[in-house]
């Protein structure tokens, strides 16, 4: 333990819960063992996972760990801090499962801390379905016989009926129970650890739910300072700051997806389900519910690939489907890849797969298909291991271009189609280059936690005066990254920005904060006119440090915080190395980036992509052969104890 841990007087509540589902044994360990470098959330989990998840195991092996972690700011008034972090070996990641992470908004993390725990580590496998009941400093495993089989909404209502409406619940639905590879861990209405299929890991352990309730609170080192910081930031501001590009969107009242979120988020919306209920939706759900007009413009298109346009259903049907999807415990994003692929099948004159009819533009059929996915029935059984794995199964059975399309829609490591410029989002140069470097070095779609880090600035190139935006970027880049050309639309020297984004992502997932609001690369600006006139648009990038100090008493420099982030990132990279992830696999992403970007038609040849990898690996202090940390890099990060294992892995990898 660092001696500065003694200065900590708030934030963490002190205990980590360890649950062995096989034996039923529940123990605690002090959080201080990991402080200060294992800050919380993603950093804390990386330290635990590196030490405790046995190398080489399958995600469904009982010795796999489920880690649920809060951060020092969780449960406090720090804006957007109500998030919960989760990690484990993911069954969705392709081509082979490895360690990855997910965060979800909501109210669970705060409740866990008020109950007296900073994090939970779960391993083993229960003989019968159970749920973990945490209340006022105590934890116990209870039989989940009645709960098993319920959807995520029914199960939460049942548990709240038993333990009170302020009891917060993480739960899996039928999809998780049946180990569907994109099954979620769900919370409240639409908060989910979604893309990485963690629900299936819970299902494999016979873990249905975790409940948390407590009244102990979170100590705050300097309440006055926290109050002043929160007031200084202001409330009901748009989140993220690029919202000024979306005229009319700032006036609408939006749902919040997290305790302590005082922003008005552009990607959130209320929808009306067919049964009359109001349902909140975020991002892929909520964006679709803005209006009928906007919905018609929501297209799932590919850049170079012929991806057919998918039909949206009317608003109430969309809201109903999203609500049902959450109840079943399925990742709502599945539709973004499966619907266009199924439409492409129809265009090829294929109207049934292995005897099951397909009709993806028919809402009733789609709802049935979704149900089948969660219960592994009918056509759903075929798709329940995700589209990418299905392509391997159907190879030779369907036309090659359909198989290629399916592989393109899920082009590597699980579900990456997010802010990479080709498929769903438009990311002009240099933004897709930055996200490609991040993708090539991380376990999953990396941009999921870096919306505000810099990537959303891309929208200014598309929706505002491009030349003016580039001029402003130069001033901003000089100030933030000490390089006026950091955001120039070129392929050169983008590694520092990719790494900066990744540092920010880890900090955000550790404290935690919401990446739609932080970091404040751009200062709060009320309108596009104000943005056009502003000389300097840079924001307050040390807000995280000041919140951390106010809440915990811990005084960290940016350099120290970055060091902790890079240490955690490197531990994650070492876990990827354990799973055999290395440069050759990352080179495999190159064909995707040969497709022209939707926004500006730019692309990169495989040799160019290889140069990008070189630049990134060098900037990280990794070797060029495998893309793994060099011994001296590990030494600098205080991870010398990992050197012998990594050397053994290197030798193994080099053997023919």
């Amino acid at each position: 333990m660092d001696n500065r841990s003694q200065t900590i007087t708030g934030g963490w509540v002190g205990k980590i819960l360890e649950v062995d589902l096989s034996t039923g044994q529940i123990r605690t360990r002090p959080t201080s063992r990991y402080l200060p470098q294992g800050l919380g959330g993603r950093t804390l989990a990386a330290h635990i996972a590196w030490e405790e998840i046995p190398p080489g195991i399958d995600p469904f092996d009982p010795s796999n760990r489920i880690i649920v972690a809060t951060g020092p700011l969780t449960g406090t008034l720090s804006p957007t801090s109500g998030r919960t972090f989760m990690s484990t070996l993911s069954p969705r990641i392709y081509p082979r499962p490895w360690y990855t992470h997910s965060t979800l908004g909501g109210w669970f993390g705060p409740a866990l801390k008020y109950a007296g725990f900073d994090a939970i580590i779960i391993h083993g496998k229960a003989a019968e379905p159970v749920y973990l009941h945490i209340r006022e400093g105590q934890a116990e495993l209870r039989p989940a016989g009645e709960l098993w089989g319920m959807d995520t909404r029914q199960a939460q209502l049942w548990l709240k009926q038993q333990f009170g409406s302020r009891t917060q619940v993480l739960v899996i639905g039928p999809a998780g129970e049946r180990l569907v590879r994109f099954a979620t861990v769900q919370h409240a209405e639409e908060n989910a650890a979604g893309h990485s299929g963690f629900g299936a890991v819970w299902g494999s352990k016979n873990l249905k739910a975790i409940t948390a309730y407590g009244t102990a609170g979170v100590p705050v080192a300097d309440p006055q300072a926290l109050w002043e910081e929160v007031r200084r930031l202001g409330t009901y501001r748009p989140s993220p700051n690029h919202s000024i590009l979306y005229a009319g969107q700032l006036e609408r009242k939006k749902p919040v997806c997290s305790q302590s979120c005082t922003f008005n988020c552009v990607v959130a919306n209320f929808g009306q389900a067919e049964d009359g209920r109001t349902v909140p939706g975020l991002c892929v759900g909520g964006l679709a519910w803005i209006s009928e007009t906007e919905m018609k413009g929501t297209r799932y298109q590919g850049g170079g690939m012929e991806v057919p346009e998918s039909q949206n259903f009317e608003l109430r049907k969309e809201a109903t489907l999203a609500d049902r999807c959450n109840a079943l415990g399925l990742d709502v994003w599945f539709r973004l890849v499966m619907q266009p692929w199924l439409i492409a099948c129809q265009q090829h004159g294929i109207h049934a797969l292995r005897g099951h009819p397909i009709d993806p533009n028919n809402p009733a059929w789609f709802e049935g298909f979704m149900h089948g996915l969660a219960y592994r029935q009918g056509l759903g059984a075929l798709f329940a291991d995700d589209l990418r794995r299905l392509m391997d199964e159907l190879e030779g059975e369907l036309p090659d271009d359909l198989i290629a399309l399916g592989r393109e829609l899920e082009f590597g490591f699980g579900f990456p189609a997010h802010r990479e410029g080709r498929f769903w989002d438009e990311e002009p140069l240099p933004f897709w280059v930055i996200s490609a470097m991040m993708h090539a070095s991380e376990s999953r779609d990396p941009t999921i936690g870096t919306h505000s880090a810099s990537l959303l600035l891309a929208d200014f190139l598309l929706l505002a005066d491009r030349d003016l935006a580039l001029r402003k970027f130069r001033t901003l880049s000089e100030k933030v990254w000490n390089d006026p050309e950091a955001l120039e639309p070129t392929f050169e020297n983008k590694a520092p920005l990719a790494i900066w984004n990744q540092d920010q992502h880890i900090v955000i997932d550790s404290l935690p904060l919401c990446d739609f609001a932080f970091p404040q690369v751009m200062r709060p600006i009320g309108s596009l006119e104000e943005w056009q006139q502003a000389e300097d648009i840079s924001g307050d990038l040390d807000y995280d440090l000041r919140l951390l100090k106010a809440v915990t008493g811990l005084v960290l420099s940016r350099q120290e915080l970055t060091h902790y982030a890079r240490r955690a990132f490197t531990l994650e990279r070492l876990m990827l190395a354990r799973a055999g992830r290395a440069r050759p696999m990352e080179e495999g992403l190159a064909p995707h980036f040969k497709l022209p970007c939707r926004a500006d038609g730019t692309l990169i040849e495989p040799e160019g992509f290889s140069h990008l990898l070189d630049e990134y690996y060098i900037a990280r202090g990794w070797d060029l052969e495998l893309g793994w940390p060099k011994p001296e890099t590990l030494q600098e990060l205080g991870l010398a104890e990992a050197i012998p294992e990594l050397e053994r892995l290197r030798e193994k990898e080099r053997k023919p």
Partner: protein
Amino acid sequence: MKMTKIHVDAELCRDCQACELACSLVREGQSNPALARLQVTKDMARYEFDILICQQCQPALCMEACPNEAILRDERGVVLILDEQCLRCGECAEACPYHAIFYHQATDRYLKCDLCAGVEGGPACVAICPVGALTLMLETVPEEQ
């Protein structure tokens, strides 16, 4: 007499709980909704929210219910619990038509909104609420009998 209270527009509430956290931070120096003097409630089945907070009633049923005269109205018209005189019997909480008197077991205290007596800038919950679901309201009411 003139009196102030915090008006609730529950339709606007989005359950961010910033009001509870601001209340406990400013009044208790910690982040703990269970120590807040107001409470956000959520009916998950209907996806509806409400905010329970003292309406400084005139007359105040809590004051009438208290067997030890531990509840009084100050010169601002604000209803206060005198902790040192409180018997912890819970009669006030039972009597409150707004369910706005809260018992915190660990500290064995009954808590209610006192409009942030002594806090610069007025009630913290009103200051933080991002959607205007809580507003400070001045109204004239008949004198208490």
